[in-house]
């Protein structure tokens, strides 16, 4: 059984607002489109490095893109 991550993200909303396709963003941060889809759907937690790359691709902070609920 796959343990669900508590980390949520708003990559899809931010990406669509920026008029960027999944392929565009994936190319920009150097991952496959399938990996980006998995991240957007919460099926894969990106590494810290990739999380920074994603936030920089949109020019926003990590907190604007990712959310971790307080205990």
């Amino acid at each position, binding site marked *: 059984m796959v343990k669900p991550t508590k980390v949520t993200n708003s990559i899809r909303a931010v990406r669509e607002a920026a008029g960027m396709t999944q392929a565009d963003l994936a190319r920009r941060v150097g991952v496959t489109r399938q990996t980006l889809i998995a991240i957007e*759907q*919460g099926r*894969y*937690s990106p590494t810290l490095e*990739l999380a920074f790359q994603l936030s920089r691709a949109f020019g926003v902070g990590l907190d604007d893109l990712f959310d971790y609920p307080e205990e």
Partner: protein
Amino acid sequence: MVYEERNIWAGLIVSVIGTIVYVVIVLQQAAGGPLTDVDWVPIMLWVIGASIVGAIVLSIVWGILAGMFDPDGVGKSDQRDRDIAHMSTRVGQAFLVIAGLGVIVLCAFEADWFWIANTMYFGFALSSIVGGVASVIAYRRGLV
């Protein structure tokens, strides 16, 4: 489907087929008699050799066909592929350890070489199959 996932599927398909073929041939050769009388060495070597070649050929052919539809994705892998590969290795390794311990026990009891070699063979086969299944699940259901 990404490049690494295709390779895992190819390895998984070939491992399952190879293991089934090996078991069927050994049982046929035994023809109801003791398994230890079977000349298992050439069968095992042929199955291992054919499995390696089969997995490579299947990956290449599948890659060529996939490349026709998605030229950008050919040969590309990323951090998620590496994370899934690590997880798959960890999962599969348990079976190698169990097989290794089994081999030590069989040697201690001076079991027939057939059982020693086949315990190790099935350790490798199970390691590959279970690791492959774990990878495919991670690709499809997620790795978080």
